[in-house]
């Protein structure tokens, strides 16, 4: 490792680019606020999804385990936060206790799901993870009787925002003469978290573990023959992806102040998976692109379709909501048709796929 071929880290090689991205990231919440706080919230969700997609990327992109129930861990994190910081049970723990706890519990769930299913291959694993996600959602939906744990379909309201001392992330305050609203504060928190998860992803990619994942993805039997403990390494991928999901869920809870099972449907899992695949599986910039695009597209369509139909036909001909989902679906189909390896695949992965297609 400490030989003569010392690798410079990405941010040392591209300091100008990093600076530019930093400036853009800094400007986004203030530019978005010009269009109203709703756009800041959309930006927040884009980053939250970047976070989630990168978490799932560890499982699907690196280790090659198709997980269709990723949202279960997101839900676990969200509900842990919601139950421990809301009037529902009258417990109000600080976020720095709950977020790690949420991550730990989600991680536990990840291992719980992973342990019995690790010998399953490909699509069998996919359907089991899907089933697991549904089981979690159904329990969240129905655990309001006989003991009210999750408050059923109504969900949990009045969840505490993240607070550090007197500094609340929900309220507007003035820092250094700049007025910063609640959503803008969460934006910066989310950016910080996203940078953290990006660093973890980058570092994992070229680590011993990352290489082991890649080996398993390409050929599990060969990986085993090379002395990789495939069971533990796969379990680690599940646990790690799940922990990220748990943290994201906690932040989601705090940011929204409200959670209900509706937010954790299978469609959500599928959307996150679509972000990973559409962007470029296993390639960090691709996954980020996928997450941002798939969060932004429905919103842009939401604000674009009604005026457009109005302008073209003079009235609403097609229900805008279904037209929006229709276009979203079509976009998925078209992108996959013309960029089968994703919008921004890693060069290495693209080569591998070109070779392995039979």
């Amino acid at each position, binding site marked *: 490792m400490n030989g003569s071929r010392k690798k410079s880290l990405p941010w040392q090689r591209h300091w100008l680019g990093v600076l530019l991205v930093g400036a853009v990231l800094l400007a986004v919440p203030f530019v978005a606020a010009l269009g109203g706080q709703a756009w800041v919230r959309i930006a927040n969700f884009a980053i939250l999804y970047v976070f989630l997609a990168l978490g799932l990327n560890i499982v699907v992109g690196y280790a090659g385990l198709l997980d269709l129930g990723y949202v279960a861990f997101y839900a676990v994190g969200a509900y842990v936060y919601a139950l421990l910081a809301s009037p529902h049970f009258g417990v109000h723990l600080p976020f720095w206790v709950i977020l790690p706890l949420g991550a730990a519990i989600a991680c536990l769930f990840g291992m719980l799901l992973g342990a019995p299913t690790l010998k399953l291959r490909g*699509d069998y694993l996919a359907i089991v993870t899907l*089933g697991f996600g549904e*089981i979690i959602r159904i329990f969240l939906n*129905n655990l309001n009787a006989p003991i009210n744990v999750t408050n059923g379909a109504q969900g949990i309201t009045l969840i505490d925002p993240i607070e550090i001392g007197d500094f609340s992330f929900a309220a507007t305050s003035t820092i250094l003469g700049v007025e910063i609203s609640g959503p803008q504060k969460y934006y910066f928190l989310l950016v910080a978290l996203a940078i953290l998860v990006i660093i973890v992803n980058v570092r994992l990619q070229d680590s011993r573990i990352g290489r082991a994942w890649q080996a398993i993805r390409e050929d599990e039997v060969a990986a085993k023959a090379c002395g990789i403990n495939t069971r533990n390494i796969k379990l680690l991928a599940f646990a790690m992806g799940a922990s990220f999901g748990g943290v994201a869920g906690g932040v989601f809870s705090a940011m929204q102040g409200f959670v209900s099972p509706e937010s954790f449907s299978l469609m959500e899992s599928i959307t996150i998976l679509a972000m990973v*695949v*559409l962007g470029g599986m296993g390639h960090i910039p691709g996954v980020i692109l996928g997450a941002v695009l798939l969060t932004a597209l429905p919103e842009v369509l939401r604000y674009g379709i009604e005026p457009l139909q109005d302008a073209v036909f003079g009235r609403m001909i097609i229900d805008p909501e*279904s037209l929006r989902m229709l276009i979203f679906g079509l976009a998925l189909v078209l992108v996959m*048709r013309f960029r*089968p390896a994703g919008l921004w695949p890693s060069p290495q992965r693209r080569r591998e796929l070109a070779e392995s297609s*039979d």
Partner: protein
Amino acid sequence: MDTLLQQLINGLTLGAVYALVALGYTMVYGIIGLINFAHGEVVMIGTMVAFTVIVALAGSGLPPLLVLSIGLAVAVVVCMALGWSLERVAYRPLRGAPRLTPLITAIGMSMVLQNVAMIIWGRNYITFPPMITKHIYSVGGATFTNVQVAIVSLAALVMMALIYLVHRTRIGMAMRATAQNPHVASLMGVDINRVIAMAFVIGSALGAVAGCMVGSYYEIAHYQMGFMLGLKAFTAAVLGGIGNLAGAMAGGLLLGVIEALGAGYIGQLTGDFLGSHYQDIFAFIVLIIVLMFRPSGLFGEREGDRA
């Protein structure tokens, strides 16, 4: 005792429907290894088309049985065309693409079909016109209707026809050959494209029949009905060992029965702690348990370890 018998009868009816839908998944999967997520929507469109035709002909004075048959026939034809175009437009260009690519396409197509259906048929539930006079039979304390009898026997008939097709005809032989090894099959003069298209067309036809069955059983249709049905049927296909026809049939029936029994007995089993709204959990719990012990499903062949 009558709960047991009653739930068995209900489960069998539902299971017959699951089995037919599962066959559509398993045929496509067996040949090209694709989870056709849009299959559930094909079933939904089958139901919708049948309803539309039946409602349109309801006042025409034709005998009810003829109207039903016309509805079924139109639905089957529409779904076959739909299945064929799905394969042609969405999946064929992606042969040889990375494995997850067609999966995302399938999800995209599923969203497209669902919303097209919503635009055509609207958001509301559509009710089935009362065409058939229901007869209720009762055996040993349990009851069943003539609709249930019709569903189960039609399903059995269709499945037998499928088995005949796959095992006794030229196209069936071509399908089995392609499922085993597409490359070698093509060297033997099998037109792979045609076989794959056939798998989609036949699967969609079965889906249309299943769609009409669900429609006449529950007497309502909704543009989102295909999703859960497809999910259950896919679970059934995996339960039986995906890619295996007999497995899909057995898996479907088993899943239907398990669900019905689960819904009937869960209250008793857990001392009323969990109610029947946990019905949907059974399918998945049984699936996980079965796959823990038989990782390739009940009837799936133990696949060699290959990447």
